[in-house]
């Protein structure tokens, strides 16, 4: 072992610390292959089940339903992927890893930003997989190249937005089990009671009202408009307002909880 001289320390650098921690979280995928299944096989399974089980019943043909449902399936997938943010942060707290990071001269918020950056990569991966598979099945972008790229970037950004409430949940919850319970209670109704899988007009009045107020509906309608070609101004405005609100509420909450939790 070398002598105990003080190594030169640089000032905490949020950008490089974030990149290092994102790398750490992405390396976890290597150790837990089930994460890869969750990012790859699971969304494809959902797609196949929905399109082939319900497609014919809802819209008469699965080909037509694929066109309708893909935006919803993408948005649902990016709502569930940030669960990993919640679970990973929760594990870091309960295992004492956060104590080590916080006793180091590094940017303190880099743990959260690194985790979210890593999730950005995972979300992008899933979006590419789902979209690619859909195109093999015959999905066609009606909104042109700009609409296609715009919609996928938009869905990715929404996935990153959803990381913040999940980060808050992961830091606040005592155990991974409560992360799962609360997360599902929140995400499952929000994604299903939306315009993801069926037209809201077909639902009972009270549900239709909820669906129309649901931020996920605004996000899906925007993605759908961009993908298939259609009016997006109205849902886009709603979606952006919601996304700003979600980040404005949950990012500070997550950071405060992160600082306070001991």
């Amino acid at each position: 072992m070398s002598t105990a001289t003080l190594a030169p320390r640089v000032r905490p650098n949020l950008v490089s610390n974030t990149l290092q921690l994102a790398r750490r979280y992405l390396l976890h995928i290597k150790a837990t292959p089930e994460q890869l299944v969750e990012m790859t096989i699971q969304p494809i399974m959902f797609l196949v089940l929905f399109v082939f089980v319900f497609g014919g019943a809802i819209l008469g043909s699965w080909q037509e339903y694929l066109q309708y449902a893909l935006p919803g399936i993408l948005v649902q997938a990016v709502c569930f992927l940030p669960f990993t943010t919640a679970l990973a942060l929760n594990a870091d707290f309960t295992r004492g890893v956060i104590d080590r990071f916080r006793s180091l001269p590094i940017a303190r918020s880099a743990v959260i930003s690194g985790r979210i950056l890593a999730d950005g990569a995972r979300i992008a991966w899933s979006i590419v997989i789902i979209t690619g598979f859909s195109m093999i099945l015959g999905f066609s972008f009606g909104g042109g190249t700009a609409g296609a790229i715009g919609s996928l970037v938009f869905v990715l950004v929404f996935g990153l937005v959803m990381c913040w409430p999940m980060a808050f949940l992961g830091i606040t919850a005592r155990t991974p089990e409560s992360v799962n319970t609360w997360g599902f209670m929140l995400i499952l109704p929000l994604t299903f009671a939306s315009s993801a899988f069926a037209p809201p007009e077909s639902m009972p009045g009270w549900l239709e009202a909820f669906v129309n107020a649901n931020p996920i509906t605004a996000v899906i309608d925007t993605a759908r408009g961009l993908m298939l070609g259609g009016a997006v101004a109205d849902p886009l405005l709603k979606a952006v307002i919601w996304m700003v609100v979600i980040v404005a509420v949950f990012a500070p909450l997550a950071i405060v909880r992160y600082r306070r939790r001991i």
Partner: protein
Amino acid sequence: MSTSAIEAEGLVRTFGKVRALDGIDMVAREGTVFGLLGPNGAGKTTAIRILSTLLRPDAGRAIVGGYDVVHEPAKVRSLIGLTGQYAAVDELLSGEENLFMLGRLLGTSRSSARARAKELLEAFDLSDAAGKYVKAYSGGMRRRLDLAASLVGRPRFLYLDEPTTGLDPRSRLELWGMIRTLVAEGTTVLLTTQYLDEADRLADEIVVIDHGKVIAAGTPQQLKTRIGGQVLQAQPADPADLPATEKILAALAEGDDGAHNDGQLVSVSIRDRSALGQAVRQLDDAGIAVDDLSLRRPSLDEVFLAITGHVAEEERVEDLEQGSTDERRPT
């Protein structure tokens, strides 16, 4: 560089109604091992967390390497390494990746981070397991990696919070050896432990705390001297002679404690060194043959018992530090 490396004055920290620290003072000198000794729930971990900037004190102040832990936490963090009660290493990375990541986080280049990781893995006898996931490591290996992880930045001050709790005796001895090496190289070590022999073997100076208060302080020698002189032990060859031996030794005892007979060995606290000679003569006169007759200093266990009035081990049942952690966690 001041000679008092870590200084704490009147540290107080409460969790709800529990006063985990109730006015702790301590001074650790540079280049020594400072032992914080006490049963579970005494406040040791709370003290370490304050000194490592993870927790703010409600009152009092603490200086590490000349910097105030509350006002200059970033400076303090650049000087310390922390190894907590549980091995805080990333199970989903390899040992080498853990150390490499920490080096990179501390701002060193890729090549120096790799080199430092390799160097530490070698020093802690983990080279063979360098590429394995930590989840496959044994408890002792995790502890060694945890210690290595706290050394990546070559800290001047190393905090070890119960570093050997739960380790088998061999791993414990190995870890002790590594700690001694670090101190020989100039690191100042702050060690908490509930094992009296550990404090005795490693620490230059000890503060004994119980219920958040300092109840004794000094070198291990001073603490042992404090509760009286020495212990005289005799083991009669024939167990039938035990009562007679006990009677002879009891007459030599200091105070009214009398002699302690464990069914094999009779021991008694003495202050007067002539007691040994008297014991030899009187046992000889009584015709008692002894297998063993010796003088020794009291163990820290006996010191702890004498100071606190209770045995250290009994306190384990109630783990206040654990309890207070729960209180602090949001629901």
